[in-house]
């Protein structure tokens, strides 16, 4: 049995036994290499389920849709390790109750999809632990290194060119499971901290604020990057920030559902070499 069929069976079981009220998975999209989210409420609907190497989107943002979890019933969801880390963060930030989530874990290496053993987010803690061990290596990115070789002027010019394309559609925000605020700071106009016009200054401010708000919270799922209609390499900034919090505070986002947010906590001996 293929992994897709195994999981279909599992989804049908979960629904027919009443363990979950819904499973969030993937179905075919508009093109061959695109997938759309699938919200499965009955065992029959599981027929549409697809699970292959194109299922890369992090679905966890759908869990915090208004009212979905408020009846305290369980929901199943297909998640890669980055998605599991995401729900850990959402739980740590009190946006969902981790016990309501049944994880259908999988991972993609190249074209191959493998199943991950476990049912609740906590079952994957050993896996996430190993991700943290490998993180210094995994977060490396030749483009980041290249950018860091440039002088500030050149780096500024690079981002100026990238951000000049931004049209302030906020698709990056909408696609990000971490952007759950009821009111985004950019929509706050008293005072208007972030310029809303899509001139480069406004775009620059928006993208800096976005990256700052995701520092220590982003798992690098790439939803923002893929959602961007003008292909701004948003993931690059996020990855750089992830490197920073890992290096400076030994913090990898989403280790557990009780992990303290890196910017709401501190250690007295945090490094401060830059402070005069």
């Amino acid at each position, binding site marked *: 049995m293929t992994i897709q069929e195994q999981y279909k069976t599992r989804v049908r079981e979960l629904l027919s036994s009443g363990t979950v009220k819904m499973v969030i998975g993937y179905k075919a999209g508009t093109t061959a290499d695109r997938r759309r989210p699938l919200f499965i409420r009955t065992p029959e609907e599981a027929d549409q389920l697809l699970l292959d190497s194109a299922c890369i989107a992090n679905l966890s943002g759908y869990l915090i*849709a208004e009212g979905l979890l408020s009846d305290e019933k369980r929901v199943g969801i297909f998640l890669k390790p980055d998605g599991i880390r995401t729900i850990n963060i959402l739980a740590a930030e*009190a*946006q969902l109750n981790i016990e309501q989530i049944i994880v259908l874990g999988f991972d993609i290496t190249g074209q191959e999809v493998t199943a991950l053993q476990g049912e609740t987010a906590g079952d994957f803690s050993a896996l996430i632990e190993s991700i943290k061990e490998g993180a210094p290596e995994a977060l490396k990115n030749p483009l980041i290194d290249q950018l860091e070789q440039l002088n500030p002027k050149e780096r500024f010019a690079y981002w100026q060119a990238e951000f000049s394309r931004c049209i302030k559609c906020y698709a990056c925000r909408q696609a990000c499971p971490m952007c*759950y*605020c*009821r009111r985004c700071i950019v929509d706050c106009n*008293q005072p208007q901290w972030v310029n809303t016009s899509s001139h480069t200054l406004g775009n620059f401010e928006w993208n800096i604020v976005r990256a700052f708000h995701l520092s220590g919270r982003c798992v690098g799922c790439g939803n923002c990057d893929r959602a961007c209609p003008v292909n701004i390499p948003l993931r690059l900034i996020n990855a750089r920030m992830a490197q920073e919090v890992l290096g400076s505070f030994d913090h990898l986002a989403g280790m557990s559902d009780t992990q303290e*947010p890196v910017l*709401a906590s501190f250690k007295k001996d945090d490094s401060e070499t830059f402070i005069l």
Partner: protein
Amino acid sequence: MRTEYPVPLAPFGQQLHTYKDCTMAKIGVFICHCGENIGAKVDCTKLAAAMGEHPGVAVAVDYKYFCSDPGQESVKKAIRENNLTGVVIAACSPRMHEATFRKACAEAGLNPYMCEIANIREQCSWVHTDPEMATEKAADITRSMVEKVKRNNKLKSIEVPVTRRALVIGGGIAGIQAALDIANAGQEVVLVEREPTLGGHMAQLSETFPTLDCSQCIMTPRMVEAAQHPKIRLLTYAEVVGVDGYIGNFHVKVKMKARYVDTESCTGCGDCITKCPNKKNSSEFDCGLGKRTAIYTPFAQSVPNKPIIDKANCTYFKNGKCKVCQKVCELNSINFEMQDEFIDLEVGAIVVATGFQVQDNSVYGEYGYGKYKDVINGLQFERLASASGPTFGKILRPSDGKEPETVVFIQCAGSRDPSKGVRYCSKICCMYTAKHAMLYAHKVHGGKSNIFYMDIRAAGKGYDEFTRRAIEDDEASYLRGRVSKVWEENGKLMVRGVDTLLGKPVVIAADMVVLATAMVPQPDAKDFAKVVGIGYDEYGFFNEAHLKLRPVESSTAGIFLAGACQSPKDIPDSVAQASASASKVLALFSKEKLEREPVVATNNETTCAGCWGCVLACPYNAIEKKDILDRSGKVIKRVASVNPGLCQGCGTCVSFCRSNSLDLAGFTEQQIFAEVMGL
């Protein structure tokens, strides 16, 4: 995901979070020459003219001294005549005269928080040489403040009701002193002690330095006074397990541990103790040098003088058979079924006086503590020297009960030793070691005492004289140096150390070795600090709000510190701090309501996403989780809610808040934005 609920805002919150219409602002700008101090560098007339042109400025004038009486009068007059909505005083630092001018504004009918100070003296005229640039900078500073004050809110000082009842945690000398001082001033006190009796460590001591009066003689009357005081409710064998609330309004949960003896009916006759067959339990009060029964009072003068059953060692609890105590008790006071109980208290202030412990000296393997019976610590020596102790005040070796002919005292056994012990000085050891040497000399004639020391620290009234007496009258031999090893040889304890003044190693054959053990925090101090909601240092001593200026207050408003829980202290210091804490409590209780500066955070509950980062970041536990209910009482969402009684106004939460929902009165986002943009 991003729907907004029509949740009503708190009136105070509304004020901060809504748009400030600045078009109707009428700001008065008052530029002070401060004699020559400002006027010599900053062209005040030019500055006034420039400010007069600024949008929203109704009046801009300069004057020699605005802080003078006529100066203040002119400000008041301008406020009344022009119906000013805000005032900027461009003068000295706000740290000098902010209060002066706020008061003047209030007298003229303007909300005092509509007044801001532009610091053009300390941070401009005094530090710059070029008049033109100084004037330009002064204009920037003043303009920035004008823009800020346009967005100021009419704040009201915060009133917090006060429950006039104090909780004192810890029934040692510090706790008793604080409780008595508060109660004698007519306020109610609840005194909670976790041991079965009041007394703490002081009750264990033999004599006290520098007067050598008997500790119990001065301690026990205070214990009795506290227990019998009509204003003091005494809860012994009880532990504080939860503290909620804030200054003036604390909710406290106390666990009354099961004593298995009904204290109401028990008269303390002691029949049960005499008859208890289980007599071989190590006495905590005697530091393991004596024995006690399984049903016991820690010592003869215990307060309350009602026994408890040591459940871990009681024959009945272990084997299910015995109950001798129950049989002999004529009042039927023994109850083996007793359970822990919980009491809720409402108090307005808390004094934490939880004391200390002595360090476990077994970390010093080379001194043989725990290995050789005759190596004891200072507290054990107190018990030996105490008339009520296991030897009735005779100095006898624990191993064979013989009088020691030579005793070696080792100071700084743990203190000032970063490698094995603690880095700090325990403060009392120099004094009590001198006292021990004197007591030994008085009790064992011809006894020879040798004291190894690093420094003699005897600062205090009558203290240095005391150590001199030990040396001169009682012939204590002080050797400046450390001990490297203690071992047993032919029934003697061989002490090898160094006399650094002679520059020679020394070996002393002793009959007893006394370690002047470090004072350390209670082992559970850090956990307890979290229960109470106060800070602690790296060791576990509780943190004062300010080491010099607020030494008896914790960083949490309404919670005070007394005694050795804050740092090592002797009795006079503990008592002084306890009385100081009591006076702080009484000052707090002197009014029905507290008034506080309204610089506190508020939350916009409509936009709050409930991520609780602020709850974690707040240094004062001032942010709570609040349920927003719909009409049927169902929880719609949970939001952060700032308790203005606890909030100290640092604004850490505000900068954390990603959705910009939190804001800080007096330093709002709009105000700071305007300040930057006004530059």
